[in-house]
């Protein structure tokens, strides 16, 4: 239960902190930290406009997407406290319930019949496909290392290791951070601020969404970011007592948001055809973790 509470609190501030960091870095004051939340509340009060060319798929997709993110949030543990759901192989459930949500946003985008949204959908599908092996090799390695197959047990077992396991955790942080950037369509993969449909990935897929549905999609996006942040925190806190673990949860989330803000301020987006290379490179970092685990377990003769 604790993890759900913490993730929701982090999600409320996360996007606001990114935006504020970017504003400060470019010499502006920027909107209030809670502005993204206010935007969502405003959207929730609005009705929805549906395009005449869309079918029921377009109408149910935002809800399914939102629900999938909530489901994913439920399996994330926090230190020694389990997630609301915890079972063997829950990290596979985590990955595919998110993929289910993404599948629905993709077909909803295709459903609009817009050529822009089709392009966005194809890009999103391609990049998620490339990011998937990175996540599974990472989690598989950690499962191999700890000998468990659920998030809670993996993370609880992770801290009891040599220093090399902390090195692995650092690599894992990098992989998870990058996957979260890809999943949340942030720089350097996608530019969330652009007004140019031709260069968008995620933004272009939700061009036709409005009102309540758009609010759901935004909320799901904020939560998704915090979920990945929580996974990263879990790599480090292990069985540390709550009075240290909770502040360090927020500290790590804060650092993550600020560093995303800084990355987005001081570098340009990748050229679209470099994105697959970059994402596939993540898989190789995951493979490094895998070999590291094999070394620790002395599987090499």
């Amino acid at each position, binding site marked *: 239960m604790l993890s759900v509470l913490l993730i929701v609190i982090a999600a409320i501030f996360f996007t606001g902190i990114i935006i504020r960091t970017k504003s400060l870095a470019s*010499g502006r004051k920027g909107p209030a930290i809670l502005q993204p939340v206010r935007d969502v509340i405003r959207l929730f009060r609005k009705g929805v406009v549906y395009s005449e060319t869309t079918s029921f798929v377009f109408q149910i997709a935002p809800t399914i997407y939102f629900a999938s993110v909530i489901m994913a949030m439920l399996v994330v543990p926090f230190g020694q406290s389990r997630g609301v759901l915890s079972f063997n192989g829950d990290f596979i459930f985590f990955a595919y319930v998110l993929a289910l949500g993404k599948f629905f946003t993709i077909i909803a985008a295709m459903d609009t019949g817009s050529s822009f949204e089709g392009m966005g959908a194809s890009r999103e599908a391609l990049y998620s496909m490339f990011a998937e092996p990175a996540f599974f090799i990472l989690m598989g390695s950690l499962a191999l290392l700890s000998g468990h197959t659920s998030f809670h047990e993996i993370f609880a077992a992770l801290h009891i290791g040599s220093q090399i396991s902390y090195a692995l955790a650092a690599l894992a942080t990098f992989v998870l951070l990058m996957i979260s950037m890809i999943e949340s369509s942030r720089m350097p993969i996608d530019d969330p601020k652009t007004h140019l449909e*031709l260069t968008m990935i995620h933004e272009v897929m939700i061009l036709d969404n409005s009102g309540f549905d758009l609010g759901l999609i935004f909320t799901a996006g904020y939560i998704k970011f915090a979920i990945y942040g929580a996974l990263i925190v879990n790599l480090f806190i292990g069985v540390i007592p709550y009075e240290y673990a909770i502040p360090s949860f927020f500290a790590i989330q804060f650092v993550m948001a600020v560093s995303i803000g800084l990355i987005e301020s*001081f570098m340009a987006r990748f*050229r*679209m055809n470099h994105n697959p290379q970059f994402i596939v490179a993540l898989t190789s970092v995951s493979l490094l973790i895998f070999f590291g685990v094999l070394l620790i377990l002395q599987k090499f003769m």
Partner: protein
Amino acid sequence: MHYLTIKNNQPVPVSDIPEISYNAFLILNTGMVVETAGRHCVNYFGYPEGEKILLICCIADDDEHVIYISSSVVDIHSELHSFTAKQLCFEKFEREIHENYGVQYSDHPWLKPVRYAHDRFDKTNVISNYPFYSIDSEELHEVGVGPIHAGIIEPGHFRFICNGEQILHLEIQLGYQHRGIEKLFLAEKPLNQLATLAENIAGDTTVGHSVAFAQVWESLTGFEPGRDIDYARTIALELERIAIHTGDLSAVCTDIAYQLGSSVFGRLRTPIINFLQEWCGNRLSKGLIRPGLNRYPLTSELAKRLTVVLDTFEPDFTEMNKELFNMPSALSRFERTGVVSTEDASAIGAVGMTARASGVVRDTRVSHPHCLYSELDHKPIVKRHGDVYSRVTIRKKEVFQSIKYIRALLENVPEVPELQSSSILKTPCADLFTISLVEGWRGEICHCAITGSNGKLIHYKIKDPSFHNWMALALSVRNNEISDFPICNKSFNLSYSGHDL
């Protein structure tokens, strides 16, 4: 002689322009363009006289610093051989003649509407049924963008034919901004209104177009602008160049999602346009340039102020450029993106910084000097590759060059003579033809005017550099990724209203 040789801004009686048969006209002009690389068509237009059309073609020779004018009279219903079949650079001009007057071309490869002028020949051609090029294919898909723009710029429709993410073909359909500006020049209006009209041909080239109009008017009325007038115009042209190039660098940074560059260049543009406001009361320099007048002389106090503005601008601009041009992620977006080859650029008659980025040296400031450019010993900045990187670099270097010129000019602020009455300017002389070439920030601006027997304007023809350069954009995106289109587009930053008139 089958043609008349004149200088920039030199008025000639219309009757002095030799009139030759259409075939000779075709051979002469298409032949002239290929002879040396320094020649290109600056304007080619028709003037209707009942059932006949007087075609006037102006070819500029950049090496000899002259313009060759020739003409031919054809029947409106005749079917002609096109110039375009021999030389691509006449393509848009002939489409325009076809659209406006209904002249048929037997071998024009791309006889489509240009801008849907209100008094066009064939009213059944409407903007909603533009004949787009299409490919019948299962694999390829079409992406239509516009006419409503995602941002705040002007309307235009872009139709891409793509193979996945790769653009195979782009067709640009314009005409949404057509206001009939050329016709408005002919209406009987006070001179001030005409000058205001010229300022609004393209909002980002206020100085360029108003200088071109002022020069046309002065040459028609036989007025010799004093040194102080030319001085103010030269500085205004260069300030406009600095302001727009800096703003465009900011826009290019926005399109590659480089926030720092976007906001710093955006901020740097402000002091320049604020200086223009101090100077003439308008940040876009509206009201600054008037024919025969120096309404806002650049006094020595303003000169001091401008020196201070440039002194604070330059170090920041240098530093930001150092950041931008040393950043791998930005360079990887710029380099080898949106290439226009030298051959293509010269074949389509590209002008201005677009041409110079592709290695075609085309700069009115050196080839047909106006204002004080002959004193400045201007050396055009040329890049070879024709990619986004070249165009961005040209912008950067031209800003430094403009700063250098302004500093040089500021050393000697000319005396402003007592305000003369501009009554001599009221009526142009009768039966004259004149042509004015001005290098605006985007490139060569050409205004042509013909006066009637009572000295009234009877034909006014405007050519904005965008007229040629839109084709360069269409060529540059071929085989690029569709996601790189915005940055290609921004690296040219062409005018919709300048094209649509």
